[in-house]
């Protein structure tokens, strides 16, 4: 839809052709995704869309992406670089497909599997196509893979270095057999991996026909030009941010193994046309799985800065170049082998993004929101289907509230910023798994109070409908609040609670089962009739709630987004329901608006 305008001497391809090729590449990524969604087996793929499809040039530089999972898009850059480096040149043949999921080789965490295929033109490699997807079952100690109390990487699933899944179009049965023998749900793994392979073939065919149409030289010049344009525009954007050093830190409340807090600290240095995010001073790596690898941390940094800069910049290698990450080895933001890390990608990643937002709150006051709810609310479960005895496992997650924004409230109930997954419809969920969802509703008062309120979280209550279901969890923000900014109040915490069949009372998993952490644990056996309640947090508020107009407070009361108690307590407005059923508030007395 757009074309580059000012022709500059360093660009080799005309503007219109560049636009056409850029759109074509992004469309190709979308097509790869649709092929995956429609053919895959697990709801993680086909409902949640927890996957990403990305194109690379022959050197492994990213040339295009589409609207997938930002954390995967960030890490796949490292994953593909690593795979190409480790395997070396000249090893690929047409029809080869390579698989890898090792977090110590650039993958976000073990459940995320990357598939890579070289694209050939007249016998030469001209591009790589790759996709990355979260398999619902990676063969970890806990069904669903996210063991909240893992103490090393080996408990987090089957680790695959770069391996040939397919050679010249022929499936490598040895590799498939090893994978099938280690995953609890091999049929689903098979269906999902086949969907991924099919999606690479779609991309290969599309790229080949693009190159045939324009010729190799124009194609390569165009991708080089697009990278140059993206880099130049990103540098221009960064130049608009006032130079300086900006600080922020936040706490990860515990790690599932030790009940101690970890600090994530960041110094953001804006220097003319580049930005460095320096995490020196962050805590040493955690005993439990809250660690991030360098790729996870760098990916979160990219994600934060992509959100704060012009979204029309082409998303390729170039736009990442002016962004640098410093993460000392051995810390929670760059853990060393064999530390556990499966929760880093779901929990640390959004936290890093919020920390960078927090750091830049005063530098970019018209763009930066308060903290989002900021946890994926990972709830994992598995077992045997009543009746057939087939094994199943699933990774369930929730959206959270967005933080209040400089000009408006945060959106309610949106997936964390590091992903772009959809929820699993209850009718699909209950058809696939022996758990009934009793309710799934927005949670009033969960959005942090502010001149611009944080978005709402949700409450979901589920009843187990099998004699035995094994559950695990990785939540955050259960004790550390989603922060508000510029005087806004924090959002409501997350939570995961248990109610034994027949009991009236909800209790934490620590109380009921003695888990070290109430929010991170694995392999708890629940019985038929037991219930689980999930609370997804709201976002923090932006600005002093006393400056929120009474009309907006009345609207929130009318919609049930806040209670009358909160209107009085947080907003200083006494609320009364009139005889027509409308809420009216009496104006603030004895308080002065700051302005």
């Amino acid at each position, binding site marked *: 839809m*757009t074309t*580059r305008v000012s022709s500059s001497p360093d660009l080799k391809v005309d503007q219109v052709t560049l636009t056409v090729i850029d*759109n074509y590449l992004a469309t190709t990524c979308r097509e790869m995704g649709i092929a995956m969604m429609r*053919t895959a087996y697990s709801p993680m793929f086909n409902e949640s869309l927890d996957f990403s499809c990305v194109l690379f040039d022959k050197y492994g530089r990213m040339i295009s992406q589409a609207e997938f999972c930002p954390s995967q898009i960030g890490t796949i850059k490292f994953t593909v670089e690593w795979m190409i480096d480790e395997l070396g040149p000249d090893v690929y043949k047409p029809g080869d497909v390579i698989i890898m999921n090792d977090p110590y080789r650039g993958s976000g965490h073990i459940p995320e599997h990357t598939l890579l295929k070289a694209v050939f033109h007249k016998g030469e490699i001209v591009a790589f196509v790759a996709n990355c997807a979260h398999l619902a079952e990676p063969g970890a100690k806990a069904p669903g893979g996210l063991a909240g109390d893992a103490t090393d990487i080996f408990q987090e699933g089957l680790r695959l270095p770069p391996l040939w899944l397919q050679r010249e179009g022929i499936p490598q049965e040895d590799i498939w057999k090893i994978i099938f023998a280690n995953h609890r749900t091999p049929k689903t793994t098979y269906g999902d991996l086949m969907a991924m392979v099919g999606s690479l073939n779609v991309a290969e065919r599309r790229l080949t026909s693009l190159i045939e149409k324009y010729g190799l030289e124009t194609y390569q010049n165009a991708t080089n030009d697009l990278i140059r344009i993206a880099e130049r525009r990103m540098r221009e954007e960064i130049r608009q941010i006032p130079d300086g050093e900006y600080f922020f830190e936040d706490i990860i409340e515990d790690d599932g193994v030790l009940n101690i807090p970890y600090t994530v600290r960041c110094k953001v240095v804006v220097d003319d046309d580049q930005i460095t995010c320096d995490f020196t001073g962050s805590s040493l790596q955690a005993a439990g799985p809250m660690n991030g690898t360098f790729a996870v941390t760098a990916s979160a940094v990219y994600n934060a800065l992509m959100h704060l800069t012009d979204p029309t910049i082409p998303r390729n290698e170039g736009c990442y170049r002016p962004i640098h990450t410093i993460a000392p080895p051995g810390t929670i933001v760059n853990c060393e082998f064999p530390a556990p890390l499966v929760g880093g990608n779901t929990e640390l990643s959004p936290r890093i993004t919020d920390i960078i937002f927090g750091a830049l709150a005063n530098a970019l006051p018209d763009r930066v929101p308060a903290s989002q709810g900021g946890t994926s609310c990972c709830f994992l479960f598995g077992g045997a289907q009543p009746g057939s005895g087939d094994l199943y496992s699933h990774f369930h997650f929730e959206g959270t509230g967005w933080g209040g924004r400089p000009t408006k409230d945060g959106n*309610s109930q949106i997936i964390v910023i590091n992903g772009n997954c959809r929820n699993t419809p209850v009718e699909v969920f209950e058809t696939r798994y022996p758990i009934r969802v009793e309710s799934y509703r*927005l949670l009033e008062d969960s959005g942090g109070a502010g001149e611009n309120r944080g978005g709402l979280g949700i409450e979901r209550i589920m009843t187990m409908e099998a004699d035995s279901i094994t559950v695990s969890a990785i939540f955050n923000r259960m004790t550390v609040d989603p922060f508000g900014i510029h005087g806004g109040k924090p959002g409501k915490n997350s939570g995961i609670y248990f109610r034994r069949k027949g009991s009236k009372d909800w209790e934490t998993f620590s109380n009921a089962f003695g888990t070290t952490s109430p929010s991170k644990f694995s392999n708890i056996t629940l019985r038929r009739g037991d219930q689980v309640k999930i609370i997804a947090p709201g976002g923090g508020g932006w600005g002093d709630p006393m400056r929120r107009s009474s009309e907006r407070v009345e609207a929130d009361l009318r*919609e049930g987004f806040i209670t009358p108690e909160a209107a009085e307590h947080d907003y200083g407005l006494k609320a009364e329901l009139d005889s027509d059923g409308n809420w009216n508030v009496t104006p603030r007395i004895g308080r002065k608006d700051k302005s």
Partner: protein
Amino acid sequence: MTNYRIGIDTGGTFTDLVRFNMSTGEISSLKVPSTPSKPLQAFVGALKQSEVPLNNIEGLVHGTTVATNALIQRTGAKVGFICTAGYEDTAYIQRVNRQFLYDLTWDKPTPLFQSRRNCIGVNERVNAKGEIVTKLEDADIDRVIDHVDAGNYESLAICLLFSYLNTTHEKLLANRLRERFPNLPISVSHEIAPIWREYERSSTTIADAFIKPLIQNYVSSLKSGLADAGFIHPWSLMKSNGGLMNADAAALQPIHLAMSGPAGGAVASQRVSALLGLNNVVTIDVGGTSADVGMVLDGQISYTTEYEIEWGIPAAIPLIDIKTVGAGGGSIASVNSGGFLQVGPRSAGAVPGPICYGQGGTNITLTDANLTLGRLNPDYFLGGKLQLDRSLIDAELGRLSKILGMKDLELALAVVEIANENMANAIRMVSIERGHDPRNFALLAFGGAGPLHGSAIARKLGIPKVIIPPYPGGFCALGLLMGDLRVDKVWTQSFRSDRVTPSEVVERFDVIADAAAIELRQQGFEGEPTYEYSINMRYLGQNYEMEVVVPSLRSTNNESAKEQIESAYEAFNRKHIAMYEYSMNEAVIEMISFKVAAIGLIQHPKLATLTDTGTQITQTRSVHFEMLGTVPCTVIRRKSMPVNVSFEGPLIIEEDGSTTLVEPGMKVIRNPYDILILEVLK
């Protein structure tokens, strides 16, 4: 006595009427301005202008964008949403994903109803096997009734969990509410969209309820207006899937009118393709603000159920698979924040319109660019009804060119090129994305601006042949006369290929086909219906189905039923390969839903063959092309173009409602049906 069939297509800007003389086969068309605030006025006005005595109208079919506009502009009713308790927020929670990555200013779409307080939960529950686990009690229905009583709703939507498996509770609730509130429109999810996924089903049902009072008023006002004028015969509306529905029936499930407007064009495309013996055709309808892209595949229109009113607000109705992009004659060229030239999706619309209309437009549009390049005739736009003024464009064109460092003509070319690429991308999305190579297709281009861009779009996609039908400007209205009465029924129940017996499938089809036939008769069809059968299938474990057409599976013997089911499995495997590059022939196949369309065939207009082609009128004017520069280009009037004579491009063919551009490197003939066929020169 001469009898006529009339098609009236009401769009946002113009109302097109097509008149078909059933004795002579003569077709004529006319265009009047739409009157959005008083739709009856343009409708009756067009009828009067057509000079057909009302008694001589044998059939009247209407296509309208009134439902689409009400949905998009959110001018529908106050809806009460009744759902399973615990799920009151379904329409707010939605699917929790974001439309764009990296955009903190994005707002999640809000539901079509106005307040969260309009959601009423009822205590009941059906499980995933379709079993009632919590019975709906009378006391709870009474509570809902009280709530509705107090709510002043104009319309109700009911969507209970798993109602596609067990309709008992929805029926009970709907019956009690209909008894108590006989004048209140009620939309029930298992009637509107018996599909799984509670959000998609709720959203569809809510959308139906949202526009129901409005459509009921619309239909009854047209009815009484027609009655006042002396027309008392039944008339039909075209549904989003191209089938016709008696107007009274349409008012009961108005969501099916969501894409009524463009459906006529798709139906006409299918008929014209068949006339030419073309099995695979991509269609593009380019109007003032948008381009609609569709497909004819193996001679059939392709359908989908994935319509979104806006991003994130689905209406899962069967509709002709049409992809709309914001590229039309009024699309505005601008420079975006990154310094990039952009065309659309913003449009100057009909008012103020392109700068050259001289009605106060200030932005360069695609039409302005085409005029600059000499591709439009300023003296013969809309048959000369609108004088275009080239001189008005210069200042703004010059300003933009300067910003972009281009010459004026280069900029005009770039605007056209980008618009063409946007339209070509839309075609890629409906073709390649679904596994079809556009190079094996012909391109059928219509709408006022389609014929001007058809050959360039085809060139981009490697499509060798472009078809410009007769009446390209009023083609949707012509299509209204080419539809058949149609009732669609769906039965959702899952069967596995390793467990199902053929007789079970046959029974399903018997039940739904009979129900469809009864409804068809209720709509006044007296002949013998024809049927289309299909099954939605997937590999066991997948979540998305593919629709596979099956031959008749009714009251047939077990042996042949078995054979037919087997061949349906094979067809599924083949389709899976075609779309996704692989199949799993050993895997268990799951049948999810069974569909029947009962079709009442009616007489369609046949395009008359041309006898007199008149005298060829030829002019020449300067037209700018990228490869040739500015060159003299032959211009002919379509009416005067000799039949079956080949002309080479560059060539411009003008007619009242449209202009066809034949690019250099292509040739064109006008065939005896007045269809223009453009082909790449060998």
